[in-house]
């Protein structure tokens, strides 16, 4: 609710008393935007995390996408926010992947690199969350890990189509708007993704 207050005060300081309806409209817009971001942030994080395989990078990407939407597209009709947000998110994910490639190439030429990078991973960091978990939860976690692993091996467009549909629940038209391609291309990407995942995971559905 803090954000509501700050956003509301933004316009209330500037508008004359007779323009209360404008102030209310701005507050409604701010509430709608916050509500939208709260609804999509976890799904967006998971999409970014699966694509990047890195939690901090995924958080950075999601925050960038939220800022970009708030800065540039908040005045657009709310029904346009979802495809816009996921398009921004995908662009940020791609930018992050490109930066990683460049960084890896640069670092490969550094003679002093590698000492800390070659260290074995900290087992504590790699360990799953502590605490007793039911067998079903373990099985579900293992299946999720398998699915996530298989998703990372998909081509980017196939993974994007699959996640937008199955995490965010976008339909074909919305997915096409987000991916900036035709609905036919979305179907092609989606079916290929599904086929590849089934061939790798097989009995995930059992």
């Amino acid at each position, binding site marked *: 609710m803090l*954000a509501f207050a*700050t956003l509301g005060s933004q316009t209330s300081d500037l508008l004359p008393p007779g323009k209360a309806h404008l102030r209310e409209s701005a507050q409604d817009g701010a509430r709608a*935007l916050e509500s939208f971001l709260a609804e999509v942030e*976890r799904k967006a994080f998971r999409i970014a995390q699966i694509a990047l395989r890195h939690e901090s990078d995924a958080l950075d990407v999601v*925050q960038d996408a939220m*800022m970009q939407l*708030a800065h540039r597209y*908040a005045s657009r009709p709310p029904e346009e926010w979802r495809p816009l947000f996921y398009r921004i998110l995908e662009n940020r994910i791609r930018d992050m992947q490109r930066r990683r490639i460049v960084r890896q190439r640069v670092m490969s030429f550094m003679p002093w690199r590698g000492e800390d990078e070659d260290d074995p991973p900290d087992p504590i960091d790699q360990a799953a969350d502590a605490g007793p978990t039911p067998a079903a939860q373990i099985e579900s976690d293992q299946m999720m890990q398998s699915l996530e692993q298989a998703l990372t091996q998909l081509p980017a467009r196939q993974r994007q189509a699959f996640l937008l*549909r199955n995490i965010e629940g976008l339909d074909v038209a919305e997915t096409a708007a987000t991916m900036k391609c035709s609905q036919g291309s979305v179907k092609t990407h989606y079916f290929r993704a599904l086929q590849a995942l089934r061939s790798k995971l097989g009995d995930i*559905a059992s």
Partner: protein
Amino acid sequence: MKSSTDELQGELTGGAAEFERRARQLLSESVEGLPADTRSRLTRARYAALSSRRSWPRSLARHWVPAGAGALAAAVLAVMFIVVPRQESPTANPLASAAPEDLEMLADSDAVQLGRDDDVDYDFYEWAVGEAKGANAPSLGT
């Protein structure tokens, strides 16, 4: 979910549809089961995005108003140094400062031709002066 009613759903065969349902369930559980610290960081990121939107017009003004003022000053200087020197000074072209009646007189072909000695009939003027003096002199016969 919207996708349960769209056209893709109808095109999936039984095994594919079941696989999709299970994958969706797993992904949904992974979204809902995010650790508390991750959810907290996402909430902070959301507030940061909304707060930055609040300060956006001010930061925009802070950056773009000085830039606009600088561009305006540069444009004024460009006008002063480039456009103004191209205007010819009044001394360079005397016609530019001439009054309209002067221009009309100069352009009039019937006007008296001044300054052209070869066209002046000096003999006529001498005769006329002499005639005038003779006419004003007291008559000897009266």
